[in-house]
């Protein structure tokens, strides 16, 4: 158990490092800007209509504090961090005066739900099919699947999302192509709302699954086809063990370990995909929030979403890493 705690501590340190570097990156990027974000943001807001002068002054001081433009660079750095740690990104400019944290809090469950469900489906399905394809190398169907996976895997999220949109939006309109749920529904655990959410999530989830499936499939197939030639597998086969048993407890089990690490490492990439998928399907998650914030010139919101997404993905990786030794007993708890 001591070894597990050492492992735990190491992962925790890594998590802190990731968040630290990520947030510093955000600080550096914002300070590298040649434009004055405060004046830009204020110009963006006041262009919609006249605002009272004292409201503008209040906004300016709040913005300067938020962007860490008050005091020396060291002071700015400290202010920036303290605000990030408190989750305080000030009021949103495009939805003034709603705080940025409230907007993100509203959007986060949508993205988290979409990502967790589609990632799980993709991972399980991809590894299962890939494992079968690596083991039963003569199967025609599985070979064909490999060819399809190779063709689909390298296509970027946007293109797949767009193709789905064309097929199910124009050619064969059976599924809702935009929004997170139907309008005028009571949000909560009631059947009309839940089923509407499920129906609206099919296309965004499908685009994420289609892209992700290929890489898990191909990865697992090559892992398994290497393991199949190992001595202990050959031994188990010649000993007359049921082939399903060999595949399940000898081959798949050992091939899964690197795939679990891969799952942790791919989370960041999946999140990237979710941003564009959400935007294409108008899904009310943080991706849509981020892109709309850029269009609206809402600086605090962009910064907030970036920071929260870095933290959220790091938490996901941490959780997977902590579960990892429980799945694979061979992992040395270094």
């Amino acid at each position, binding site marked *: 158990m001591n070894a597990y705690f050492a492992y735990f501590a190491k992962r925790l340190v*890594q998590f802190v490092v990731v968040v630290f570097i990520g947030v510093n990156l955000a600080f550096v*990027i*914002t300070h590298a800007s040649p*434009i004055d974000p405060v004046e830009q943001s204020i110009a963006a807001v006041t262009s919609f209509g006249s605002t009272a002068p004292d409201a503008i002054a209040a906004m300016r001081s709040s913005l300067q504090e938020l962007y860490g433009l008050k005091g020396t660079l060291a002071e700015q750095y400290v202010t920036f961090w303290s605000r990030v740690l408190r989750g305080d990104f000030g009021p949103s400019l495009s939805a003034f005066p709603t705080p940025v944290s409230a907007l993100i809090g509203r959007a986060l469950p949508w993205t988290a739900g979409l990502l967790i469900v589609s990632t799980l489906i993709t991972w399980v399905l991809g590894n299962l099919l890939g494992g079968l394809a690596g083991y039963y190398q003569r199967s025609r169907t599985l070979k064909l699947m490999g060819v399809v996976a190779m063709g689909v895997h390298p*296509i970027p999220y946007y293109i797949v999302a767009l193709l789905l949109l064309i097929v199910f939006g124009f050619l064969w309109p059976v599924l809702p192509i935009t929004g997170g749920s139907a309008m005028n529904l009571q949000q909560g655990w009631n059947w009309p709302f839940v089923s509407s959410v499920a129906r609206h999530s099919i296309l965004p989830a499908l685009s994420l699954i289609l892209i992700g499936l290929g890489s898990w499939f191909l990865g697992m197939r090559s892992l398994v086809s290497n393991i199949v030639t190992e001595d202990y597998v050959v031994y188990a086969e010649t000993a007359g063990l049921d082939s399903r048993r060999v595949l399940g407890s000898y081959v798949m089990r050992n091939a899964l370990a690197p795939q679990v690490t891969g799952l942790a490492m791919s989370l*960041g990439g999946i999140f990237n995909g979710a941003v564009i998928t959400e935007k294409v399907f108008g899904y009310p998650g943080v991706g849509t929030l*981020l892109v709309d914030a850029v269009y609206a010139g809402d600086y605090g919101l962009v910064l907030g979403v970036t920071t929260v997404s870095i933290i959220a993905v790091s938490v996901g990786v941490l959780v997977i890493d902590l579960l990892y030794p429980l799945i694979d007993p061979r992992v040395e708890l270094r």
Partner: protein
Amino acid sequence: MLAILRDLIRYNLEFRIGLFLVSIVVVMAALSVVSPYPAGDVYVVPPDLPPSTAHWLGTTSRGQDVFWQLTAAIRNTLFFGIMVAALSRVIALVVGLLAGYSGGWIDRVLMSINDTFIIIPLFPILILFYFVLRDSMSTPLLATIMACLGWAYDARLIRSVALSLKTREFTQTSIFSGMKTHEILAREHLPYVLPIVFSTTMNNMNWSIGIEVTLAVLGFTDINTPTIGGMIYWANQHTALVAGIWWWIAFPIALVVMTFVGLFLLAVSMNEYIDPRSRLARMGGSR
């Protein structure tokens, strides 16, 4: 080198298909040189014409010939991918070789930075970059940023090879003969990792082109330089799909998908070639 190429062409179907697809893409890009009008010009031909013998792939609502627009777009997109791949290869090589060879605290520090870059969601960060740089965001600048963000995974691969090279006898010999660290890395270890560098180049190009397309579609790049993503952006701006100008959006997508699949197949077949077990199996040896 030529022998490797011959082997790949002879024994590897994936490589043949990949080579074929990439060749078409490269020919398209090369044709941009003989384009009858500059790619940036608008309203040089009648707008909204469907594909015909006069305009093979139709014309856009901005009065551009889709075919000639596409040649310039794919050329810029390819250049972008090559730029990112070349720059990030340098970073990945330095970090990977150094971390694998040095070990100890250098390795630990470099790898924790490395892991950070693997995990961090890059897309929001790129959007943040665009947000603060907006007007000065040019293609070379974006390529540099992407290169600084996209080296991590490949550095890990290179490190894993460097780790095993470190324990080989010739490394010891070089150390005793008084070679400096950077000489050992550049002259002794570099040749061994070059095959990996080549195959990761293809994957890195795919990755960077994919993100460029995605950013451009949202309008988050320099959309006045024609790229594949830029073409789709302008098509969306003119609601080409709703207006039925499908050729404006279908042909760029078809070409970029060809690029992706072609580069990916080249990378896969090279990877397989590097692994002697699967190479033997492919050439008809037994499992």
